[in-house]
Every structure is written in C-alpha cells, then in structure tokens.
C-alpha cells in the first residue's frame, strides 16, 4: 500500500516537472483552491457549536423564504382546485340512522343535477374527528356518538350558475332528514384575496430574509476574522497578498451558505412530506384535485445556489471592508 502511494506521488511529481507550461500552472492553481476549500470546511467543523449556530440561524431564514415560496405556489394551486369543487354538505338530523341516510343518498343520486353523493356515516364521522382533532383515544370515553351523518353532494359540472346551485340547496334543505345544508363558496373568494395579500407580503419578507442571510454570514465571518486577527497580521508580514488572505474567508462564506441551503432544502422537503399525507386525505375528503407541489430539481438547485451566493456575498462584503482596517498596510 505504501509503495503504491509513493509511486503515485512520484508520478505526480514527474508529471509536474515534465509539463511546466501554463496548463500545469492552472492545474496547480485548481489543486490549491481545492485544498483551501476543504481546509475551510474542516476549520468550520473544528468549531462545531459556533458553526452550528450560524448555520441554524441561516437555515431558518432560508427555510422561511423557501417555505413562503412553496406556500404561495401551493396555495395558488389549492385555490384553483377549490374553485372547481363546489360541494354541498348535508348534515343530517341526529335521529337519522345510517340506513336512512344511505337511502337518502340513493334518492339524491337519482337527481339529474347531481354528479355524485358520498355518505359519511356517524361512525366514519367520529373516526375522522378522532383522527383530525388529535383527541384520539380520549374520545372513546364518550357515551354514544354525538356526531351527525353527513352527505356530501357534488353537483354536475354543468351547474355553473349560482341560482341553480341555490335552488338545489334549498330543495335539499327541505328534506326532513337534513339538519343543515351548507355550501362553502364565500370563504373561497375570501381565501383567494387573502392569499393575494399574503403572497405580496411574502415576497417582501423573502428579500428581507435574503438580506438577513448576507448579514448573518457577514457577522460570522467578522468574528472569525477577529479571532484570526493574528494570523492575518503575520501572513501580511511574511508577504501574503490580500487575495491569499481573503480566499479562506470567502470559502467559509460559501460553506455557510451551502450547508444552510442544503439544510433548508431538507427541512422544507421534510415539512412537505409530513404535510403531504394528511393533506392528501383532506383533499380526498373534499374531493379536490389538489396535489402538493414539491420543489423541482431546478428549484432545489436554485435554492442551494442562491444560499451559497448569499454566503459568499456576505463574506466578501465584510472581508473587503475589514481587511482595510487591519494594520499594517
């Protein structure tokens, strides 16, 4: 093993001495950059707490910005899917049995204005409530089942005029078995306008958060620069150029941004995954075509790239300003 490594080293050496042209110089430069890049990474990992804190704060900022983006892009889709899903819920009287409810559903299905009717029995309603309310087992203590059966009525797509829907609803409301007939349309329009406002606020917030990332990286680099003040001074004294001194800090900025970006991506994806299940069930319940929009590869790359770029920008801003303050030179 050792002799192999030695051979390799020797090979590299010969290689270098054979071609000492421009190409060799460039590959040497690249090699040096690669070494510095990894060196800055190790340096970050050598102070795990400080790095963790900076990265955490930055990841939160990026996650917020990313979540906002996802939220807006999803809510637009959601609202669109809601608009097509005009549905009427019929809450049945408490005394109505599942058989009676089923019969009513059958009758309604015969109506030519109605596309489909779904029955949610009292048991199903209770099960759903248990699941979504989070009370779970606690509800087992309940005597009886206080929840009514529900019929979800989906009118035909051709029924687009409001008065037609109104007529249908009034008609069903008059059924003896029906307690309350409810059609939620108003809140969809409200939701739409709210989402419009939110999305504009969110854009503003995202720019602020990008600024925050620059600021946080900058500040982290600033305190690192202070910690390594002696190193900077001595390096200057033995003839190190500003570029030589700056590079490690820019690399550090890159790493802060990159790691935070990857972390933010992970958090966002995890959150989406966690939401996806319940949301899917909810969509099913509401018979909606809504599909959660995950980050595409392009969007993911953009997220991580932007984070890295913001990190470098923050580092550059601070280093170029602070280095001028360091005496000598």
């Amino acid at each position: 093993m050792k002799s192999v490594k030695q051979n390799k080293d020797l090979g590299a050496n010969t290689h270098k001495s054979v071609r000492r042209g421009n190409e060799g110089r460039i590959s040497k430069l690249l090699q040096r950059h690669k070494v510095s890049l990894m060196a800055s990474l190790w340096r970050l990992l050598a102070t795990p707490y400080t790095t963790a804190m900076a990265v955490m704060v930055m990841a939160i900022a990026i996650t917020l910005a990313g979540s906002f983006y996802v939220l807006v892009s999803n809510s637009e889709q959601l609202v669109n899917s809601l608009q097509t899903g005009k549905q009427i819920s019929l809450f049945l009287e408490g005394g109505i049995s599942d058989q009676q409810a089923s019969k009513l559903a059958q009758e309604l299905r015969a109506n030519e204005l109605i596309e489909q009717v779904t029955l949610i029995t009292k048991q199903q309603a209770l099960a759903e409530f248990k699941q979504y309310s989070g009370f779970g087992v606690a509800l087992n203590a309940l005597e009886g089942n206080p929840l009514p059966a529900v019929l979800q009525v989906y009118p035909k797509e051709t029924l687009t005029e409001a008065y037609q829907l109104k007529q249908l609803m009034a008609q069903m409301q008059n059924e003896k078995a029906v307690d309350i007939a409810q059609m939620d349309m108003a809140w969809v329009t409200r939701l739409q306008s709210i989402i419009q406002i939110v999305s504009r606020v969110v854009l503003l917030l995202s720019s602020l958060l990008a600024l925050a990332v620059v600021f946080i990286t900058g500040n982290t680099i600033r305190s690192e620069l202070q910690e390594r003040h002696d190193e900077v001074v001595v390096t200057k004294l033995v003839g190190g150029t500003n570029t030589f001194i700056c590079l490690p800090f820019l690399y550090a900025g890159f790493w802060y941004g990159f790691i935070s970006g990857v972390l933010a991506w992970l958090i966002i994806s995890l959150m989406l995954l966690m939401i996806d299940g319940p949301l899917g069930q909810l969509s099913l319940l509401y018979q909606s075509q809504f599909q959660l929009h995950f980050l595409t590869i392009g969007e993911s790359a953009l997220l991580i790239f932007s984070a890295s770029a913001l990190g470098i920008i923050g580092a550059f801003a601070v280093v170029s300003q602070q280095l001028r303050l360091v005496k000598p030179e």
Partner: protein
Amino acid sequence: MLTFDRVFKRYPDAGDALSDVSFHLDKGEMRYLTGHSGAGKSTLLKLIAMIERSSRGQLLVDGQNLGQMRDRQIPFLRRKLGLIFQDYKLLFDRTVFDNVALPLLVTGMGQYEIARRVRAALDKVGLLGKENKYPLALSGGEQQRIGIARAVVNKPAIILADEPTGNLDPELSAEIMHLFEQFKQVGVTVLIATHDIELISRFDHKILQLEHGRLINQHA
C-alpha cells in the same frame, strides 16, 4: 540596497520616534543597530518593511522608493525581506513546521520544495526534532529560534533582526550570529537591532547608534 535619507517618523500623541535619520547599507553589508530602550530601533526596522510609514524623508529598498509604493506592491517587497520580530509573532495554533512554512506558502510554492526548505531552516537553528510541536510547548529560546528560521527560510535579500538573541544563551547566540554571517557571505544585507553588548564585542561589525530617535554615532 538600503538608503535612509533624512527620514522622520512621528507617532500620533507620542512625539518623534525617529528624527532626521540618514544612512546607507550596501549589498552584503552587516550592521548592528543599538540604543537605549525606546530609542527607535524597532521603529526604524518597521519603516523598512512598511509596517509603519515614514512621516518625512526618502527611503529606498533595493532601488524602490517606499514613499511611492502602492499597497498592492507591499507583499512583494516583504517577500524580499527576512523579518525577525522582538515579540516573535508566531501563530500558536500552528505547528513549528507550519509557522516556518508560511512565507513559502504565500508564494504558492509546491509542498515538496516547502518541506525541503523548512527542514533546512529548522536545522540551521537547531530545532529539527521539534517541527510537529506547537510553539506553546516550547521554551522561550526555542520560540525565538522559530522566528529566526521563518525569517531565513525564503532566502531573503535583506535580513532585519529585532533583538534576535534576547532569550538565547551565549552559545546559541553565537551560533545564530554565525548563521547571519553566512548569509552576509552570500550577499545578504543584515541589520540587527540589539542590546547585547557581549555579542557586539565578540562579533565585530559596524554600529548604527540611536538616541531618542537620532543617529548619534556611525563607527566601526
């Protein structure tokens, strides 16, 4: 190689540290710089390395006028110099090897060449076995010798040594002086600020004597 022409240096709120200093050193010349504590010896050396800038007067190093030098050129001036600092200026979070390698690292030299040269320099100051230690695990004199090794590792044209033997025993001091004389032999200009009367009397070179920032005496 080194010319001071009526150079003044004034620190803010501290009066003149150097007044009207003029002298000239040729290539391959070796001089002592003496004077009481606070006379301005370190200040004079700092001016040559552009660690401080002169307030007035002209200063030439290797033909370059420091007054007209751009900030971007300073690193390349310093690469011609071998600086030994009164307070060593070592990096305590790097090994002896890495400390000595720094002047070569900044020039982008390959690692094999660096290793070869660093070992040679450490050998000259008698620290070859300690290259993987950290400076804090070394004695005061050993630390001082790291600083000397770092100053000579890049084969400078001018060596500026500020009290290089303050923490060395007489024997080691003599060895270091021999080292400087070897460099002088191959054409290096050497300027040594020191209080060590014993050393001055043993190794005879011309003296520049400062008193309250003025050169008072230039004799053999």
